[in-house]
């Protein structure tokens, strides 16, 4: 038993729903109690889908237990088959149905339905949402895909995008464009956008592009072995990764990796002088493994940040994330306990967080700017405009997204220059955020119902005191670096055995930490 306040991932059957909802002509019959239907609103509200997820829940109740939950399943399955006429049916159980052991897979297979029935065994008490999506897609592919004649032209499949995925919709477009520039057309995009018939002809492609290892890797490995489809290992998020990806595709296909990159702006924007202030910004990175790892490379090599911490919540990606962290001289944080992530961020006191919606809230509480790079998703992560993460346009989007929460370069300079000006006082905050600093104004999209603690500015040690001159001097430092200045000074004082912090201590510490 483990106490959980917020979770990064839902249960595995929600992962199966992400596969089913992304597809058409497929139906998922889920043996589940009433109440589990809440999952529908993830798709209809967060993703604003205009149709119900293709899921039938048996919604058994206490009075059904021990009498006829099995019949209830059969009726629901038969009704769903007749009403929706799918090309294939997925059947499975949610956490509660797993306990009553009705064997939905066995029952459905014996019903004599005229379409393929794919039974899912998703262990709800061990695994989570990403596993559920990956396993479901793998089972679908294994059941339906067979070796078929290759297309005459060079084609690939885009593997991994699902419903409720972080920018999957736009990544598909961006990659299709890039590949088309190289002369590769797309055979099938799956699971999102495909039908069971499309799954059958996956083998017609020449190779697979594995967009999201979290949700597509098991299927990609199976197709490599059983259908002879090699798959790409580089996830093209960021400029460097996109170029590596193009080279990888070039090696597989023999086509030239040179494509039109005139729309790519990140490198110049990053090099232009307004971005000087980004140099060495201390960032903490957390998300799913794929997005965290790609973000680390962009942060260090393309934005000039200093990565001070990196981690992921999906244990399946622990190994590569640990290896990457090591290459950055860091130890990876692998946890799905958001309180632990919060503690880690508090200790590292980074200047910026690249995280999920959870870390955005942590950042809000601690007064640290945060840009969202990964699922779990929020209605904000489905913007109406085109905003991919992958490819060249993805790099542009990432530059804008990451810089937005920060005070802009010229503005930071002005804040230093006019720090005594009444309009540039502590309460002002970045001018493009409506005039209020993040920690003071909870944003309207996510109402804080609990009082926020705000930025803790108490001394780390009770024996340490700030002399009033030093305190005044500290207040002259712009608010967005004041917390760091205070912590640095106190840490420095602690190492020097200084009990009373004076103006001199403050500036000695500043010199000590200068970079």
């Amino acid at each position: 038993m483990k106490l959980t306040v917020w979770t990064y991932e839902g249960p595995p059957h929600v992962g199966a729903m992400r596969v089913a909802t992304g597809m058409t002509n497929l139906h998922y019959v889920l043996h589940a109690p009433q109440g589990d239907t809440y999952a529908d609103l993830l798709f209809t509200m967060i993703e604003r889908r205009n149709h119900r997820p293709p899921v039938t829940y048996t919604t058994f109740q206490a009075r059904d237990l021990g009498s006829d939950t099995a019949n209830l399943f059969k009726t629901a399955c038969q009704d769903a088959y007749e009403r929706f006429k799918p090309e294939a049916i997925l059947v499975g159980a949610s956490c509660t149905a797993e306990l009553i052991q009705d064997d939905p897979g066995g029952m459905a297979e014996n019903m004599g339905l005229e379409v393929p029935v794919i039974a899912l065994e998703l262990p709800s008490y061990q695994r989570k949402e990403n596993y559920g999506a990956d396993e479901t897609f793998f089972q679908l592919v294994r059941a339906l895909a067979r070796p078929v004649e290759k297309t005459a032209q060079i084609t690939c499949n885009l593997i991994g995008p699902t419903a409720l995925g972080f920018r999957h919709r736009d990544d598909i477009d961006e990659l299709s464009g890039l590949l088309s520039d190289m002369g590769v057309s797309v055979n099938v995009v799956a699971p999102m956008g495909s039908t069971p018939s499309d799954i059958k002809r996956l083998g017609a492609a020449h190779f697979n592009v594995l967009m999201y290892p979290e949700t597509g890797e098991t299927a990609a490995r199976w197709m490599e072995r059983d259908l002879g489809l090699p798959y790409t290992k580089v996830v093209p998020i960021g400029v460097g990764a996109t170029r590596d990806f193009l080279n990888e595709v070039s090696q597989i296909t023999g086509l030239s990796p040179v494509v039109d990159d005139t729309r790519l702006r990140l490198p110049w924007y990053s090099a232009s002088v307004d971005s000087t202030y980004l140099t060495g910004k201390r960032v903490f990175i957390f998300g799913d493994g794929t997005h965290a790892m790609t973000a680390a490379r962009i942060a260090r090599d393309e934005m000039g940040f200093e990565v001070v911490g990196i981690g992921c919540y999906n244990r399946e990606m622990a190994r590569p994330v640990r290896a990457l962290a090591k290459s950055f001289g860091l130890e990876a944080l692998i946890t799905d306990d958001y309180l632990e992530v919060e503690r880690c961020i508090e200790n590292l006191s980074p200047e910026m967080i690249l995280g999920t919606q959870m870390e955005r809230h942590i950042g809000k509480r601690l007064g640290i700017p945060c840009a969202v790079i990964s699922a779990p998703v929020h209605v904000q992560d489905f913007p109406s405009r085109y905003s991919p993460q992958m490819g060249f346009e993805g790099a542009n989007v990432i530059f804008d997204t990451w810089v937005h929460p920060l005070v802009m370069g010229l503005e930071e300079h002005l804040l230093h220059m006019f720090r005594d000006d009444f309009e540039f006082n502590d309460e002002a905050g970045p001018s493009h955020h409506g005039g209020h600093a993040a920690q003071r104004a909870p944003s309207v999209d996510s109402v804080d119902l609990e009082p926020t603690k705000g930025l803790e500015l108490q001394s780390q040690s009770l024996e340490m005191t700030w002399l009033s001159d030093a305190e005044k001097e500290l207040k002259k430092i712009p608010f967005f670096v004041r917390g760091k200045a205070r912590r640095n000074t106190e840490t420095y004082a602690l190492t020097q055995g200084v009990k009373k912090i004076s103006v001199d201590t403050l500036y000695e510490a500043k010199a000590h930490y200068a970079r």
Partner: protein
Amino acid sequence: MLKSNPTSCSNAPILKERGQREVFCGLTSIIWLHRKMQDAFFLVVGSRTCAHLLQSAAGVMIFAEPRFGTAILEETDLAGLADAQQELDREVERLLSRRPDIRQLFLVGSCPSEVIKLDLAKAAQRLSQLYAPSVRVLNFTGSGIETTFTQGEDECLASMVPVLNESGQKQLLVIGALPDVVEDQMRNLLSAMGINDVAVLPATSAKHAVTVGKNTIFVATQPFLGETHSALERRGARHLPAPFPFGAEGTTAWLNVIATEFGISNERFEQVVSAPRARARKAISQASEVLSGKSVFFFPDSQLEIPLARFLVAECGMTAIEIGAPFIHKGLVGPDLDLIPEGPVISEGQDVDLQLDRVLKARPDLTVCGLGLANPLEAKGLTTKWAIELVFTPVHFYEQAGDLAGLFSRPLRRRAALSREAAA
């Protein structure tokens, strides 16, 4: 004043269907209960699905540390039950040591904990002894196999009734969680009439000891409190059936039932209600310009459907096509059913696919439904009001009557405001 209709819905046949029910489970009630009871912690003993539901149903993330959490059962807990009790003790100890401000702890049962028959009553008893007197530990079920949405609040309140102190004093007990501002308005109305001995269940903290006994008269502000109703009757309290306090007329009727019971004179009653009732009527009339003559269809959600349909039909001039409720407790919603003229289909329970067929055939002007159905129906050209907002928003009594009408009129005004060209 509202008049009960000789040809009302109270004897109309109830359509009962059995199929997929598109409803929340009782755990969802924790979202507002934990706000209302500020020294209580709700510990769900369940699965990852329960935790995911709580964070998704809130629609917003309630940041900082919320006063609820899920003890997620793992493979090892499922193997042996003695083990699970120990594990629970450990998690509770951790929780209470981190949150010394907690005075009431609710162990909340879920579908998996009920299926494996994890005895939370036993755990609550043991833990109560361990942490008495600083923390009281109770248990109730919020599982989907036992409860639908607001029935979680019912189970929670019912779990508190047996431990309320006995009192022989004549008093009014009002049951149902209301936002503080609304509760204060209600208390002011009652005390202006001269009724000062008013207790509310749930109280905002364990300090405000609610008592019950033979001379307790109770009235509900929420229609979904059937179990609490029975539990109070078992303690000797007497129920005052009344229409629910929605709108100008519903509020007046509710107050009137209490005034009559407490022997308040007509003059006094009129003196107290006339001004707020006039304000409420005015506010409703503004919003109901859009609603009047329009049809409404309720999907089952919170059990508020019948009282709300009564408000829309009797006070806003709407026609009901179907009023679906997850469960109909005639002892509680009977007075509202009496006030709805015959005509609409009254349905209990659900087969969502069949109900969707009906709504698409009827094409009502306004459909009140859950979040899972709202956008899909909007995409088919229907105008919808998501039902959960009716539970989360202050809607009771005179001063909220206009807001309540506004919740229903806004989707219609919005549809009219958006130009068809832009939408197409």
